[in-house]
């Protein structure tokens, strides 16, 4: 009997150890091996896909670039203000994430509008205000057609395109993409599903720990 108890206790302790500590989020996207010479030795390193430099206009008509996201983790998505299919659900969920990490200087949010024609900064501002967003922790950005659709497909691996057969003319996926301080992709979550959004919040906590240590 005592042995059984001991065994159970040991398993429990062992499990609780492996659960908490060194679990890291995966790095997503393309990768390529490179050979490097470090201290005279040939070492194989992996280069992961990163988000390239970008520059857009935000809801205050101020330029927002990749530099604004240096030393921060951020969540990004693609939407448009007149979308009445998945966008309201996405941003209802994103708002919960935003409220959880509100005023945390290490966390930012970036929503790209894919409605290049109509979603000018003034319209994005109205949208943000109505959503209850002030300040620039959550950036709603406007950019050229190529830069927005290009970065969606190539850098964030989110499908978004113009489609004349769609009633609203625009089609996009509802992914929330989590990006780390090295601009590497660390997670993709369906922004229309509450359980996945919960997972995103947990993963953000974990990523913050990984990047900045326990101190918040």
């Amino acid at each position: 009997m005592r042995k059984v108890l001991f065994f159970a206790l040991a398993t429990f302790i062992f499990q609780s150890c492996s659960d908490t500590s060194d679990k890291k989020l995966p790095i997503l996207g393309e990768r390529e091996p490179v050979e490097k010479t470090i201290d005279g030795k040939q070492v194989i390193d992996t280069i992961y896909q990163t988000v390239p430099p970008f520059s857009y206009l935000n809801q205050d008509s101020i330029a927002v670039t990749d530099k604004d996201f240096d030393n921060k983790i951020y969540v990004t998505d693609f939407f448009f203000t007149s979308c009445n299919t998945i966008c309201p659900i996405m941003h209802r969920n994103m708002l919960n994430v935003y409220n959880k990490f509100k005023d945390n200087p290490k966390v930012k949010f970036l929503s790209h509008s894919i409605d290049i024609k109509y979603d000018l900064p003034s319209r994005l501002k109205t949208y943000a205000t109505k959503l209850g967003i002030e300040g620039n922790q959550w950036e709603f950005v406007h950019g050229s057609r190529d830069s927005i659709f290009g970065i969606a497909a190539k850098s964030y691996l989110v499908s978004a395109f113009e489609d004349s057969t769609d009633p609203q003319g625009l089609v996009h996926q509802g992914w929330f993409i989590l990006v780390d301080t090295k601009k590497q992709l660390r997670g993709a979550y369906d922004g229309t599903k509450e359980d996945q959004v919960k997972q995103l919040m947990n993963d953000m906590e974990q990523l913050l720990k990984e990047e900045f240590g326990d101190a918040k």
Partner: protein
Amino acid sequence: MRNKLIYFILLAIGFTSIIQSCQNETSINFKRYYVNGKGIYEKNCQNCHGSDGKGLGTLYPPLTDSTYLKLNKNSLACIIRNGQTGTVKINNISYEGIMPGNETLADIDIAQVVVYITNSFGNKQGFYDSETAKKDLEKCN
């Protein structure tokens, strides 16, 4: 004696069930409308107005203002079918924007979704049948 007793009990059960089924006719209808209305709501309304009817910020108005729903009960059907533009004041907050219409919904679908909305999210305004919906819809501007 025993037979009489059984006979009496059976008779009593029979009567009660007949009376109950009469009383339940409206309530069964109500439930049927409510359940169907919920399905229609989830498909056509929930994206913006939310599963809890609370809307989203000041982008989409909530459906929790019982006074508004009561005062406008006869125009709800028209709003659902044809949409609405301009400013609408709910719980003393102004909402601006365009609500798209749902032209494909039949009269009965609209009646069902009205029953669902006006009896959920803290509202309790009873039944609204498709006949009434039809009359209301004829008066849309």
